[in-house]
């Protein structure tokens, strides 16, 4: 989300801030008509340095919503790329729902590549930023000409949320609703996949049926899902925890410190340990007493019992790492 490279890049940009500052002054109505026509052709309007200045120059009788973004992949702005389709959807459905321009709102996008100076002059260090410039003249004029800023604190936003934010700032004006286009490709592909799947399963039914009715398969599925859930997989899903993290000295730390946190790899290690423990438990309970050769049985018994003992000891020691006050341990990992 942070975008540290921006400022340094901007410093190397041309110092033409002063040169372009004097934009042409045209009456606001005309300006709105020009940009509204552009928006009707393709919303949001792609802005550049001068057009941004022109559009947002004071004495406006219209509102401008500008997204300042950095789409180029070298800036690595994940959020920008996530939000862009939502933003385009919002701009398109608003503009096409308001062809006459009654809401007097223009949507624009300014990419960092096209307007480094603007970013510099606004002192922006992060992207994306959404500004809403209220009108300064006309019936909807507000007291302060300063733009309102939208917060992207909680990650990428759906178009509906931004829509309601924009609508809140434009009272007494029409608010064309968002129309999500029907994703025909998805429908078609779902249909194709579904019918294909049905055909295949119909053809393969005699071969699939024994697998579906196989108890061992179901036992495996059950045990794997239990191991996943009890090793904190859902926590990873919900909290989006990192897979591993550095330990600050260039190495990898496999286990998060603290009782309430964990890494992706950590849960996999724990799940594997639970799995080994359960497997040795199953072997000791079912397999070993069914072996008819006494010698083999002795070896298997000794092997599984020691695996159980050592892995349990390791598990206890890992748990002690998570919870430093924990007093219990087993050899060899004391």
């Amino acid at each position, binding site marked *: 989300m942070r975008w540290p490279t921006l400022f340094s890049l901007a410093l190397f940009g041309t110092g033409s801030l002063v040169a372009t500052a004097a934009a042409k002054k045209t009456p606001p109505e005309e300006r709105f008509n020009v940009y509204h026509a552009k928006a009707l052709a393709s919303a949001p309007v792609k802005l550049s340095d001068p057009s941004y200045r022109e559009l947002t120059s004071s004495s406006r009788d219209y509102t401008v919503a500008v997204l300042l973004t950095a789409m180029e992949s070298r800036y690595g702005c994940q959020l920008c790329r996530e939000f862009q389709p939502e933003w385009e959807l919002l701009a398109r459905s608003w503009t096409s729902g308001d062809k006459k321009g009654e809401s007097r709102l223009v949507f624009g996008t300014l990419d960092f590549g096209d307007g480094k100076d603007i970013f510099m002059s606004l002192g922006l260090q992060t992207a994306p930023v959404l500004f809403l410039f209220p009108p300064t003249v006309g019936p909807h004029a507000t007291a302060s000409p300063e733009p309102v800023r939208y917060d992207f604190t909680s990650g990428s936003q759906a178009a509906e949320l931004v829509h309601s934010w924009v609508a809140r700032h434009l009272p007494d004006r029409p608010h064309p609703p968002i129309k999500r286009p029907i994703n025909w490709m998805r429908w078609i592909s779902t249909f194709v996949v579904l019918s294909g799947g049905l055909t295949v399963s119909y053809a393969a039914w005699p071969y699939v049926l024994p697998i579906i009715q196989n108890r*061992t398969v179901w036992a495996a599925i059950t045990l794997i899902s239990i191991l996943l859930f009890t090793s*904190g997989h859902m*926590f990873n899903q*919900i909290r989006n925890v990192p897979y591993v993290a550095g330990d600050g000295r260039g190495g990898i730390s496999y286990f998060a410190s603290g009782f309430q946190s964990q890494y992706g790899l*950590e849960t996999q290690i724990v799940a594997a340990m*639970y799995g080994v*423990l359960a497997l040795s438990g199953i072997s000791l309970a079912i397999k070993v007493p069914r072996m008819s050769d006494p010698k083999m049985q002795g070896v298997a018994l000794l092997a599984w019992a020691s695996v159980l003992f050592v892995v349990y000891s390791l598990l206890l020691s890992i748990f002690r790492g998570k919870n430093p006050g924990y007093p*219990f341990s087993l050899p060899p990992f004391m």
Partner: protein
Amino acid sequence: MSADPLQVLASAGKGESTRGLLRVIILLLIAAAAIASRLFSVIRFESIIHEFDPWFNFRATKYLVANGFYNFWDWFDDRTWHPLGRVTGGTLYPGLMVTSGIIYHALRALTIPVDIRNICVLLAPACSGLTAVATYLLTNEMTPSPSAGLLAALFMGIAPGYISRSVAGSYDNEAIAIFLLVFTFYLWIKALKQGSMLWGALCALFYGYMVASWGGYAFITCLLPLHAFVLICMGRYSTRLYVSYTTWYALGTLASMQIPFVGFLPVKTSEHMPALGIFGFLQLLAFLDYVRAAMPSRQFQTFLWMFAGGTFGLSLLGLVLATSAGVIAPWGGRFYSLWDTSYAKIHIPIIASVSEHQPTAWPAFFFDLNMLIWLFPVGVYLCFQELADEHVFIVVYAVFGSYFAGVMVRLMLTLTPVVCVAAAIAVSTLLDTYLRAKLPKPEEIQAAEASEGKKGAKSGLKSTSKPVVGVYAIWGKSMMVSALAVYLLIFVLHCTWVTSNAYSSPSVVLASRLPDGSQHIIDDYREAYQWLRQNTREDAKIMSWWDYGYQIGGMADRPTLVDNNTWNNTHIATVGKAMSSSEEVSYPIMRQHEVDYVLVVFGGLLGYSGDDINKFLWMVRIAEGIWPEEISERSFFTPRGEYRVDGEATEAMKNSLMYKMSYYNYNNLFPPGKAMDRMRNSLLPEVGPTLSTLDEAFTSENWIIRIYKVKDLDNLGRDHTSAAAFDRGHKKAKKASKKRGPRRLRVD
């Protein structure tokens, strides 16, 4: 001949009646151990109600005992949610209070003088003894080995996953609900096995009791249909299933609808729909079964297809119509957050703010279940050996329960019973195998192999296709048994340690250790609540964050604005707004709600983490959800995205009422410039905040609780800021004189 002592010992348990007696004694001892391990808090502190929700339950129980059942049923509580009030009788699960009320009156009738508080404190441990017995019964339905049941009872009795919600003093719905949950499951299995209407009706009865006690009844409502559905999919439809399920559903739904809080939800909301759907599906299956018996098979084929297609289409149409017409409500918020795990975070911050609704990290599983967590899959696998109807139940419950426990910490409670049952099956199988003194003989094995070979590999699991031989080596047996004994010993020690260290703190009274190792009790909460009780008017309204609402109601007996029954998000957001806005904004809000005192919890002096500054962001978030223009979470973070309370705190933070109330006068405790917040480890600004609309009324010994009195309107009609500035001896700012226009006549 003189009896060999070993022989006597070995033959002592042979007789059936001796075994029965031993079993009863062992069960009683287990129940006693379960109760005893929950008494840490009573011994260490005193017989006191814990935490937050129990205080409301306690207050409601006192009301029930004092005013009788019918008054309790119609109770309108005007001392909470001021000025709205709460229809308490219709918005609670009365099972818990009614249970304690009945116990109270029964003991009184037996002329045993007992305080209602002690009943409430000890109800949860007593129920845990019953839970252990219910687990024993449930496990006995699963396996022929009688030791499994005893082991399950023992595990259930001391597993920290269950103790966490049932220590003495934790007088909450879960206290009796887990017993009811396990017992309902036992009755269900019994009904299903026998196809008996009587057991089904008993199951419905206890299901009704469960509905009356805990919102978690939805777990049963979803699990039993799921079990039935899986059985049908496995081709195990039978009249036993039909009789038991329909009896349970019809009677149980009727019983659940008697609770005012539940009312018509069972036929309206989506979480009850699976039960209804399976009920209908079973009727169809029974009908088809009947038709098949009466019709030639070819006609039946045609009939089946038309019937199935028609029913499916009709029900789909009906479902779509009912949902779009709004007859069937969408999923309840709490329930929905279990499936779409990001739902709550976006839409209902108040649900996300509760710590027990967080997902579970793996250490929590190990902490609460210790070795049971890896014995659990072993037991589930063993259930696949035979896979009768009741084993399917364990498998379904295991998967379902572990998913929910992974999503929400609190639901560890519903997972614990099945973990105990499965782990007990595993341990008892191991013990039965390795404790058998008889050595296998080769002739017997060959005979067994021969007979097994004839039967063929009919059993489903590949690993159980060979016959059981037994273990040859005595050293192997003794090694395994001693290792198991060590694991079990560690389990008991672990459970005791966890219970004593983690789950036995009342959180109303805090304990700390002095340097010499002796225990020091921090009793600020009760000190402050007692102060409120003694020094304020009977109807003085207290504003605090909702966490403390029940405690203020229960201990201080004063009306509150919001409490832990978070039914009205807007009202909570109002309090959040008052706390997170500046004094000029907050004062009118407080006046409008007739607030007399404001209570905040401050942990800066003691380093107490559960204080209001740490919860503050939730107040801001919840307020922002209602007033996005006025409150913004971002303005409480510095430009670098930090949440700070020291000199670099944002303006919004420094001006917020919460910040001012927390740190007011705090720097006077320290030498100038040395004021330190020990919780957040930050140095506070030299000049502390000033308050103009509130007066400090009370601060507890360790500054944990601070109470402020809301000032009345100024006598001279000034606004509070200038009045306070005047009192502090500041001259009026020059601006004021500049602003003075021509003199006007006062018209008010």
